[in-house]
């Protein structure tokens, strides 16, 4: 992958707030056309990284290039081609939605017509409430207005920091569909942060997981999540008996007893039915088989740890 194809290049990015190391030597690239998932539990350093990419805070060390250019020296040029929602969408509450968008359009670095503003309000389903003051909006409506303001100047790169936070399932789906549409139809590069793996899995093609400010894993979502190796939690009537039964087979990779009624088996995805059949044939009562992909399991662990 050469430099021109990277929309964002982060290398050795570090941010320290006095004693707290928020981001630690983080490096990754976002390619043109990616829907790039930026995943990590609460407090992992996602928002701090995003704020550095958007020049809201300055890095302690490290380099940020956007569209192949150093951010600090080319801030204005870069930001004229970036749309963003950073954490919760906040607006001038005492102004109507349309006035908020008009203000932001004037300072977005590109000509934005009144028609474009109405198109976007229609896109996010707020056209009928365009003249209402934002203080009368629900969280979901503000979130949708946030999407509209990010798209105002038709940017190439869209940075969305947890855009579905606080939305109901229907609202979450609407945002997901919009992200997919922006990526597929309008060929936008989308940098999407979330602390929900399944959300990233549904829309992203590449992703990175960070924890405590450091990179854990980076790569294509399909490769990282759809591995053949899975861990299956098996609920049985007697886990010791089940372990003994399975020890005589060769198709599992590793096995461990968790509790009296639960054991964990690492095996190939295709062998899950065999596992079920074999245990039943050997007189072990199987109550449930729950496959957990290793990355998902890992992510659940760090997420619960963060909580």
């Amino acid at each position, binding site marked *: 992958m050469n430099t021109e194809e990277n929309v964002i290049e982060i290398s050795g990015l570090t941010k320290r707030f006095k004693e707290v190391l928020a981001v630690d030597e983080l490096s990754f690239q976002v390619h043109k056309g990616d829907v790039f998932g930026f995943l990590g539990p609460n407090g992992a350093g996602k928002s701090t990284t995003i*704020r550095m990419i*958007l*020049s*809201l*805070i*300055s890095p302690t060390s490290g380099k940020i290039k956007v569209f192949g250019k150093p951010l600090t020296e080319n*801030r*204005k*040029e*870069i*930001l*004229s081609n*970036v749309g*963003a929602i*950073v*954490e*919760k*969408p*906040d*607006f*001038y*509450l*005492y*102004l109507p939605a349309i*006035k908020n968008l008009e*203000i*932001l359009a*004037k*300072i*977005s*670095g590109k000509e934005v017509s009144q028609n474009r503003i109405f198109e976007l309000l229609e896109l996010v389903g707020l056209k009928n409430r365009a003249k209402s003051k934002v203080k009368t909006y629900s969280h979901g409506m503000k979130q949708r207005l946030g999407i509209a*303001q990010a798209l105002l100047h038709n940017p190439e790169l869209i940075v969305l920091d947890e855009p579905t936070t606080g939305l109901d399932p229907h609202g979450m789906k609407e945002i997901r569909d919009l992200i997919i549409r922006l990526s597929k139809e309008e060929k936008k590069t989308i940098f999407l942060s979330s602390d929900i793996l399944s959300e990233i899995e549904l829309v992203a093609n590449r992703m990175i997981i960070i924890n405590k400010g450091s990179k854990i894993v980076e790569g294509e979502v399909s490769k990282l999540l759809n591995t053949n190796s899975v861990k299956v939690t098996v609920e049985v009537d007697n886990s010791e008996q089940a372990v003994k039964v399975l020890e005589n087979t060769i198709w599992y990779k590793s096995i461990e007893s968790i509790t009296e009624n639960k054991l964990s088996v690492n095996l190939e995805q295709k062998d899950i039915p065999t596992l079920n059949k074999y245990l039943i044939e050997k007189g072990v009562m199987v109550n449930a088989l729950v496959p957990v992909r290793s990355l998902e399991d890992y992510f659940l662990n760090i997420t619960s740890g963060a909580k």
Partner: protein
Amino acid sequence: MIFTLIRIELLKIFRKWRTYIGFIAIGILVPLLHLAMYLEGQRSLEFITRGLRDSFVLVGNLLNGYWISYIILNALTIHIPFLITLVAGDLLAGEATAGTYRILLTRPISRIQIVTSKFLSGLIYTSSLILFLAVMSLVIGLIIFGSGELIVASPDSIIIFEKSDIIWRFLLAYGFAILSMTVVCSLAILFSSLVENAIGPIVSTMAVIIIFIILSAFNVGILNEIKPYLFTNYMLEWREFFNDPMDFAEITKSLLVLSGHIILFFTATSIIFHKKDILS
């Protein structure tokens, strides 16, 4: 771009309820003072001129709009700073409180442009408040009480200005008041750049002004040494425009000191804001 930003800032300022507190306060207070002067002004005037009346015969309308405006300007210049800080203290901190720094600073505009537009908008607000005070006190005062000679009492003399020699003095005095209040506005914006809540800058600015005024009021050796460094010491220099002859050296010195403070506060705010991490 800077004009666009100023227009946006003015829109934000004048769409907020707090902006009108100053105008409402002046709009209520000045007519009340006019009423008080209408009822009791003659007695005040006689008290001021009691020494003169033994030696001179004072003729004409001395209880006029000019005299009332002079009294009001004297009374209110101490309190106007509070009305200025209500808006100026909110200019940067208000964005932090509302979380709107994030949508503002992710646009292709520099931080220095934002600070400059906020300063200039603050200046426009300050000027409009002082001009409103001028209209309320001088114009309405002239309508109600009519014009006449202006009698000004100082500790060691009483000066009477002819009717034709007054208006330009008021214009310069209000101009000077705008400069003085811009210092207050600049200080409030400086404090506003440091915090994420407008209450802090409002209280801090008022605290500085009150402390400086108290320090200026004491005529004690060591305090006299530091007086030249307190900007409040120069804020009432507009009174010099109602002196005869005027001390131009003192006026120039005050103008320079106050302008210097504005530049200093603007520069400090720009540096702080340029380096500020937006965490709100």
